[in-house]
């Protein structure tokens, strides 16, 4: 067959068909920006990050500073925008410095537990067999114990404090991520492009991490974003129960706990830290929802 000199036909649709290649992340960003609530929430989170970084500049008072002359002040009294408590702590400073604790816990816990869940879920989904069964039974068992009890047990073993709390929340937080990733891997490993990658002589590791993993990341990114809010909430709850961070670490949950007796006379002492928790968690949930819609492969044309 002498086809060597046969001209190869041009693409059937011709040049007019050639659209400029799209940048995936530019498209995601475009779709995300259409969701006003998510954009506002993201702006709020950026503001929180800036406040956390520049807390020393923003606050006139330190969070540990006791000022007995200016105790029990209502909100908006002079420089004490959120008022002061019974020994003269500036509530505004306590809340701003509290952002550092909340964000540190939220981000470290959700990212590290997602990473741990990713590794376990990827191998369980890819390998299947006894490893998969073993890991999923472990997940089932841990998921059937309330996380608070589990966390209290871990803290009982490793001690209290911020880092202990973070570690405990990671250990109790990777199960769901592992399930999410495993489900993606189970579905993706049957896809034809995985067989095509095998046909190209790629190793298992390359197929797992360079071909399947990027396809499995979308649900994990959404889960991780939502997980930040969950971790902040968990820290607040545990600190409220006095098994979280230790005073004087500025923690919103601790503030609510310390001031809860004053709810009737000075509700602002509970309201401001409560509102900080509520708004921050809500912001991460909105951003997570926005990301889910923006990343959804079904919307990709």
């Amino acid at each position, binding site marked *: 067959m002498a086809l060597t000199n046969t001209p190869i036909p041009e693409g*059937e649709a011709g040049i007019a068909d050639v659209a400029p290649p*799209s940048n995936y992340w530019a498209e995601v960003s475009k779709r995300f920006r259409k969701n006003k609530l998510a954009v506002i929430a993201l702006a709020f989170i950026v503001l929180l990050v800036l406040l956390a970084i520049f807390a020393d500049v923003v606050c006139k008072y330190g969070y540990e500073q006791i000022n007995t002359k200016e105790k029990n002040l209502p909100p908006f009294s002079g420089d004490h925008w959120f008022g002061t408590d019974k020994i003269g702590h500036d509530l505004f400073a306590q809340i701003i410095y509290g952002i550092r604790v909340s964000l540190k816990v939220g981000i470290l816990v959700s990212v590290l537990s997602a990473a741990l869940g990713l590794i376990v879920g990827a191998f369980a989904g890819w390998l299947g067999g006894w490893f998969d069964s073993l890991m999923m039974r472990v997940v089932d068992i841990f998921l059937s114990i309330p996380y608070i009890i589990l966390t209290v047990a871990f803290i009982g073993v490793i001690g209290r404090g911020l880092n202990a709390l973070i570690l405990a929340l990671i250990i109790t937080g990777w199960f769901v991520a592992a399930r999410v990733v495993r489900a993606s891997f189970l579905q993706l490993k049957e896809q034809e492009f995985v067989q095509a990658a095998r046909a190209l002589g790629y190793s298992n590791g390359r197929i797992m991490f360079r071909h399947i993993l990027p396809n499995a990341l979308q649900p994990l990114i959404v889960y991780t974003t939502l997980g930040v809010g969950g971790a902040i909430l968990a820290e607040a709850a545990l600190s409220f129960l006095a098994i979280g961070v230790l005073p004087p670490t500025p923690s919103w949950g601790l503030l609510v706990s310390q001031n809860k007796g004053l709810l009737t006379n000075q509700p602002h002492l509970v309201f401001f830290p409560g509102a900080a928790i509520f708004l921050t968690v809500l912001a991460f949930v909105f951003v997570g929802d926005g990301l889910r819609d923006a990343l959804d492969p079904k919307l990709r044309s």
Partner: protein
Amino acid sequence: MSDKELLLSVRNLAVSFNTEAGTVRAVNGVSFDVRRGDVLAIVGESGSGKSVSMLSLVGLLPPKTSSIDGGTAMWKGTDLVTMTPAQMRATRAKEIAMIFQDPLSAMNPVHRVGRQIAESMRLHLGLSKKQADLRAIELLDLVGIPQPTTRAHSYPHEFSGGMRQRAMIAMAIACSPDLLIADEPTTALDVTVQAQVLDVLMAMKDRIGSAIVLITHDLGVVAGLADSLLVMYAGAPVEVGSTDDVFYRTAHPYTEGLLASLPRLDSSGDDELTPIKGAPPSLIRIPSGCAFHPRCPYATQRCREEVPTLRPVNALSGHLVACHHADELQLVGAEQ
């Protein structure tokens, strides 16, 4: 024909799957040779074992449920059947490459097309990222994709079906393999694009000097392209020979049935297409004797009892058939 280098020589290949319903004997004793530059078409209905036999050779069947029960497949002197996974990985892409039926699902949706083509060259040929990217653009140009530099940055879903299959061909030929296995490469494409893609495939074959095994159920596709034909039924070969022999000197009733079910350009329009009666048999319980006998209009008692073996119709041309009555029957092949 025989002066060309013998690349692949398969003898009595048998593959089975273990299912809950029983053992599925998907391939029973397939033999064929592929020489450099040749196009061998494996033809048959769905479930005739044509894809399975090729996938088993490159180790792409699920290892837990399938097994190669026998036979040899000598690839340049090494038996593919007994190769270690590492040897097999090295052989894939570099020496034997696959082109899949549905290029959209066979390409990774999250990677750019250019990168997907470049990846195997970086891995197997040791090219740098830049060299591989440039080579990927060259390959896209070669398979007829307009504006290849721009298009290399596109994602698979931004390509049309025909362009995707061209990109798949580019990916398959990237490492200049000696054998291309094309598994129904045009089935997922519009009819108008099929011929173009096949032209590209043949042009690339000549350019890199490889051979092609074309798996298809479409005899129309085969007619102009294949040098030789292997017709399979129920996991076993029923007729083997040059395309001319099988088309014009048809020796097996099944092949006759396949040809009769094809529309022809010269038909008046009143002629009805003749389907083959019945359905392909379950590969768990293959009929006794000749597997085709329940559907064969010429079947006799002997066909029900005795399994026919491949025997020469014409010793000179290598035309083989597995039919007890091949000598007596006057079958109608394709019209000249």
